[in-house]
């Protein structure tokens, strides 16, 4: 991907925001992003809006908060990968020369959805009978069988993400003291071997990114590093034996392998060049699997790498630097954009106490409904 930069980012902290509407959270995040970019909404030529749970046309309605300027507004939905997929469409629009400045907006109120689900009648599909965490737990049980993984490995990942979240003011989970792996293991069991602290919370939030031509970033913010988007992919699954057609599907391994290969090839680099990585860590087992599937370590070596602290802040390649889905949160639509927000700040050197020294290359990986994979690579120019 050529000549696409992140001009600005803004984020409304994830959390339980029952008194705030999606449109309000989107406006606050959007105005922060415009100020960050040094732009006015008058400069925005198009918008891509992503959410999962709000009613039809909620995107266009939220955009009216910024003013009515007649720009094209397009809705994008791809389950957890919604924000990432909207970001990809905006980047492609800039890369293809259709627009110079495009706004990407992601918002959701998962807390509202949980209340609606509780009020609805009994489920009519098998997907609705079984707790979603169970499907990820089975990934963990299988891994434990094949590789000798222990719950302590999963707890160490979760503790890392909780503690990273504690360094991020926009994180939903804000631990008051350092979280130990023992504390994660001792939290309530959800679905063996996953505990509540190994699982992402329910929450609300909004994130906005503004993408555009790199020279705009250089002109408006001289002296600030320019963050470019050099690779983007969106893939759905190829059929393999053992594919699960019913029930929430945990990301089939091959899709993440294929997606990461595609962005490494497009970006002209490899996993060894990455300084930081964000993944779809809705459950700790996912992050463990993605270490290998993204090539951050070799197959079968994730457990050893965890024990060495390879993926912690200051480690070989830091993963889920902002707390990940487990701590920073996972409202739905804005989640993928939160990864872009974090990576942009890190590559500019503006990530505060969680800053990766000299960060130059970051990868953002999201799964959607276990059935799509969206990956981007961002670099400091």
């Amino acid at each position, binding site marked *: 991907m050529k000549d696409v930069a992140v001009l600005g980012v803004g984020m409304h902290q994830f959390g339980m925001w029952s008194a705030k509407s999606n449109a309000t959270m989107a406006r606050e995040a959007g105005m922060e992003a415009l100020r960050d970019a040094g732009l006015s909404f008058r400069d925005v030529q198009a918008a891509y809006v992503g959410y999962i749970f709000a009613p039809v046309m909620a995107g266009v309605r939220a955009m009216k908060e910024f003013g009515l300027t007649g720009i094209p507004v397009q809705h994008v939905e791809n389950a957890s990968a919604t924000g990432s997929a909207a970001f990809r469409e905006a980047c492609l629009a800039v890369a293809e020369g259709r627009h110079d400045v495009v706004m990407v907006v992601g918002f959701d109120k998962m807390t509202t959805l949980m209340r609606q689900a509780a009020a609805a009648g009994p489920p009519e599909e098998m997907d609705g009978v079984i707790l979603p965490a169970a499907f990820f737990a089975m990934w963990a049980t299988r891994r434990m069988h094949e590789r000798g993984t222990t719950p302590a490995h999963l707890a160490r990942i979760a503790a890392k993400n909780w503690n990273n979240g504690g360094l991020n003011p926009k994180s939903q989970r804000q631990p008051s003291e350092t979280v130990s792996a023992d504390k994660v293991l001792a939290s309530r069991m*959800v679905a063996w071997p996953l505990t509540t602290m190994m699982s992402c919370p329910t929450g609300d939030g909004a994130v906005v990114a503004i993408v555009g031509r790199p020279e705009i970033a250089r002109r408006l913010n001289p002296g600030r590093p320019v963050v470019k988007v050099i690779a983007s992919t969106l893939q759905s699954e190829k059929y393999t034996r053992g594919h699960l057609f019913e029930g929430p599907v945990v990301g089939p391994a091959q899709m993440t392998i294929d997606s990461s290969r595609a962005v490494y090839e497009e970006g002209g680099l490899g996993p060894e060049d990455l300084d930081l990585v964000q993944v779809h860590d809705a459950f700790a087992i996912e992050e463990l699997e993605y270490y290998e599937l993204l090539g951050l370590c070799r197959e079968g070596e994730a457990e050893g790498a965890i024990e060495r602290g390879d993926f912690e802040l200051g480690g070989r390649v830091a993963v889920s630097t902002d707390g990940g889905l487990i701590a920073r949160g996972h409202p739905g639509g804005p989640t993928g954009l939160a990864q872009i927000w974090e990576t942009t700040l890190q590559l500019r050197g503006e990530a505060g106490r969680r800053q990766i020294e000299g960060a130059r290359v970051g990868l953002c990986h999201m799964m959607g409904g276990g059935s799509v994979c969206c990956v981007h690579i961002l670099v400091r120019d």
Partner: protein
Amino acid sequence: MTERHKRMLVAMTPGHFTLPEDPNEPPRLLGTKCEACGEHYYPRRAICAKCLSEKTVQVELGPRGTLYSWTFVHFPMFGSTRAEHVGYGVGQVDLSEGPRVQFPLAGTQEEFRVGQPVQAELETLREEDGGQEVVIVRFRPVVSGR
């Protein structure tokens, strides 16, 4: 006629599994076989996901399989009114015909292990007005020698 024969069973997901008249007969899953490449699927589908052929036929699958993976959930089963469903097993089962399926498991965590033979059975989720029982399929570990 036994009491069991008078039960009125209704599948939670019609078209997904059989409801045998004989209470001792395990249910079968309703799937699809591709006549072009031989791949089997659950649930039913019109077009083969592997070779894209439309020459697919409906078949019954199971009731036996082996446990590919499992978990035990420490929350109530959604849609169930039965106290024993406050904690429940879930398994990924490789059916002998090939497809991998996900269903609740009967039994306790100690009984589950990867590679364990399992068999399908019907399980009542709740009783509705008029006495109809809403049933689902679950798999139970097969104890060797039984």
